[in-house]
């Protein structure tokens, strides 16, 4: 987990520093040997043997330097991978940390803003009764919701969003027909219950990166189930309270 990642990262840094120091010492040693050889008069055999040793040391030094570079590169990769896993863990944890539908929606918004760097987005959820989707959430539209999402019930208008609502496949844009940067289907089991539409990223986040795809997939799989569970709980809780009130009334309490 992240603590291990940080600890192993620190250990890796120390190892690389130690290897670098060893290499520097080896380099110094070679320089000393070379200086000594230049100072001392040698027989032809001694000189040949010394040249061989120096050659061998230099080859080992080159190999060790290459190993250090490789290790440093792997360390950077593993730190990056650790960061990606941490984002996924935190997003999943927080989506399922509550049974309050408003809090789940707030978490979806926080993931979009803080982890994906989205500035403008809308969350469409299929209505329980009737056609179309409600605009459950919109963000970053200070002059009003942008078309075609500026309606109470979305029944269509953005081709990329419409096809994602039909087939449940995550799509990245923009395309010739759609300004959306991503249409993320929200699935509960095999049913498409909505779509998160990313419309604009923050200025300092010019494009969605490869690692963002993991987060989009996670939202697709977990956001809807978290929202579905929270809504179900809220409905049951409301019904339970109504029944309890009726029982109290019947008892004359």
């Amino acid at each position, binding site marked *: *987990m*992240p*603590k291990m990642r*940080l600890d192993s990262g620190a250990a890796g840094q120390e190892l690389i520093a130690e290897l670098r120091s060893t290499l520097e010492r080896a380099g110094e040693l070679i320089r000393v040997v070379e200086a000594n050889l230049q100072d001392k008069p040698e027989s032809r055999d001694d000189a040949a043997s010394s040249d061989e040793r120096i050659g061998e040391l230099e080859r080992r030094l080159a190999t060790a330097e290459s190993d250090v570079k490789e290790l440093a590169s792997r360390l950077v990769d593993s*730190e*990056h991978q*650790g*960061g990606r896993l*941490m*984002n996924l*863990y*935190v*997003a999943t*944890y*927080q989506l399922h*940390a509550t049974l309050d539908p408003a*809090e789940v929606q*707030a*978490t979806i918004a*926080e*993931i979009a*803003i*803080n*982890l*994906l*760097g989205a*500035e403008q987005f809308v969350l469409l959820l299929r209505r329980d009764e009737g056609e179309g989707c409600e605009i459950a959430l919109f963000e970053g539209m200070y002059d009003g919701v942008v078309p075609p999402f500026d309606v109470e019930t979305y029944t269509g208008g953005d081709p990329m969003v419409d096809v994602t609502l039909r087939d449940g496949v995550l799509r990245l844009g923009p395309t010739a027909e759609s300004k959306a940067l991503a249409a993320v289907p929200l699935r509960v089991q095999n049913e498409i219950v909505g779509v998160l539409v990313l419309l604009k990223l*923050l*200025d*300092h*986040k010019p494009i969605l990166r490869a690692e963002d795809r993991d987060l989009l997939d996670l939202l697709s799989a977990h956001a809807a189930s978290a929202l579905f569970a929270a809504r179900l709980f809220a409905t049951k809780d409301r019904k339970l309270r109504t029944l309890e009130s009726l029982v109290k009334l019947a008892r004359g309490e």
Partner: protein
Amino acid sequence: MQPRKVLVVDDSKLMHKMYEVMLRQYALVYASDGRQALDRLQEHADIDLVLLDINMPNMNGLEFLAQLRSDGSRSELPVIIISTEGREEDTARGLEAGATAYIKKPFHSEEIIEVISRLDVKGSAA
């Protein structure tokens, strides 16, 4: 000296969880806006680093920072702004207001770890 107790000021529960996971080696204290953050500083005299969001209800990050810097006893406390406000003028405004460093969201955890590791809790990033 490295910081030991860190005040996280952010109105996002997701970010609170993120810092909890990322900064396990530090004791963390949380606040959801600038006013709460001022209260936490009163309650925890040993806080030696603040991670500060800007867009928050009640009292935003820059207002909090102005109050903090006007308080003689806490004027040297290191503050790292971590915000989605990423334009150059936002960064300049944050640093002029007295922030020690400015990190843009979304961030890689290594960035924050690195900035904290370079911090001198008496004042600024080394």
